């Protein structure tokens, strides 16, 4: 008997997953430095002696869209937006290095420079700690400039430099916490020429009108696949009616 119904159901599942990814992107339309997820559906063909007609759909979040988000000027000394494909190295919860485009930095009471996700920002040698009571700003090259409030006229001292890495040529993927990492471990090389824009934040790269269109497309595709399941059911029904003797 025909197993069209299973193929159609796999499509319905994929559509529902797609809708969920779209919902998550949509919900994060205002998260600083957020990169939209791209869902990719791949046919899984069952190969065998019979005709290859069954291509079950299996979907996965293949990658994040690395398109740059819009810039929003905040004029805060600790807000930075990364230019080009540079990423900021931060220390993830498990102590490993992970990468982010989220540059809303702040200083904890113990002086640790952290980003908006509460992850310590990595400098030339590990997390950056600034002296208590000092005025901190970030330069266009990622230099952490510290000035002593006691001597407001003195030029700010370079304390450290945030680690800006190049993502060119390396595959990166989001981890469970939403930070970027190199799959299977590994760290990205420092990009000496990377620049940041101080006093600005990179917005989420989710485009609301694009995402609404995707949402409607996914919804209609789901409806079509529902019809397909119904049709498969009807065909089965018709087939078994033929076999009846009455």
């Amino acid at each position: 008997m025909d197993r069209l119904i299973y193929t159609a159901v796999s499509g319905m599942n994929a559509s529902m997953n797609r809708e969920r990814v779209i919902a998550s992107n949509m919900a994060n339309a205002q998260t600083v430095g957020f990169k939209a997820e791209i869902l990719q559906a791949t046919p899984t063909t069952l190969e065998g002696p019979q005709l290859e007609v069954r291509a079950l759909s299996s979907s996965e979040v293949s990658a994040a869209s690395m398109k740059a988000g819009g810039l929003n000027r905040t004029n805060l000394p600790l807000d930075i937006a990364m230019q080009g494909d540079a990423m900021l190295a931060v220390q993830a919860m498990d102590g490993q290095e992970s990468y982010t485009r989220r540059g809303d930095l702040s200083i904890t009471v113990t002086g640790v420079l952290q980003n908006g996700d509460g992850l310590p920002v990595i400098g030339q040698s590990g997390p950056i700690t600034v002296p208590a009571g000092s005025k901190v700003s970030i330069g266009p090259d990622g230099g952490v400039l510290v000035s002593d409030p006691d001597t407001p006229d003195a030029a700010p001292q370079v304390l450290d430099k945030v680690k800006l890495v190049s993502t060119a040529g390396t595959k990166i993927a989001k981890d469970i916490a939403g930070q970027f990492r190199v799959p299977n471990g590994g760290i990205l090389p420092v990009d000496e020429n990377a620049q940041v824009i101080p006093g600005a934040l990179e917005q989420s790269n989710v485009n609301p009108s694009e995402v609404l269109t995707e949402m409607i497309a996914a919804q209609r595709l789901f409806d079509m696949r529902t019809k397909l399941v119904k049709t498969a059911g009807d065909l089965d029904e018709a087939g078994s009616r033929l076999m009846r003797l009455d």
Partner: protein
Amino acid sequence: MPSSALQVARTGLEAQDTRMRVIANNLANVSTTAFKRDRANFETLAYQDTRVAGAQSSTETAYATGLNLGTGVAVQSTTRMETQGSLQTTGNAFDLALDGDGYFQIQMPGGQLGYTRAGNFSRTAEGQLVTSQGYPVQPGITVPEGATSITVSDDGTVSAQLAGQSEPTQLGQITIASFTNPVALQAASDNFMLETAGSGPAQIGIAGEQGRGHVRQGMLEASNVNVVEELVDMIETQRAYEINSKMISAVDEMLRNANQTL
């Protein structure tokens, strides 16, 4: 779970609702002396890692990509934007503004110290310098009866011309509190800030020294809320709320369709 897209969209609605509340509070305080606007910060909720990229797909191969499904968004925190509000001249001798960082210390009922930048002070019948709630400024300043031409200098020194004296008499000095991490101060009602573990203890000093701001007499610091900016944020929030609610109705329709067709 088939309805999880609904749950993800719901987190979006909740986050936008919270952001709208922050904006509403900013707009409501557009005329509050020395009010600092808040910014809502969003964070992505955890990802459900159904399949980790790099996991073994067979003994010799590994998955090239993972299946990470996001579970939505949340408002993680609000940041108080500590930028200086514009100074407005009032001409009132007891109106003090801070030009630069720092806070006035106020003795609140119950002995706790409160910190404020709203310097619309006044004098009680006994001559004590108090806030509009009647809470005394710390260290206490008492203006004797009959004192004329009260002046507050840039460094907070209060002096007055007393009857029968040729030279102005120094009445005391208003000191300024600063914090390692002022963003972590807890905002309380009536313009007050309270010390927290995150802000660190108050460091008391003289106005104009060690990065503290100068005292400006006859002026008040206006709220740093920019109405146009808030209105733009408000429209952005409203639209984001709308698209998230559209998501909910889309998923609802999908599920209804499946229910009716099958």
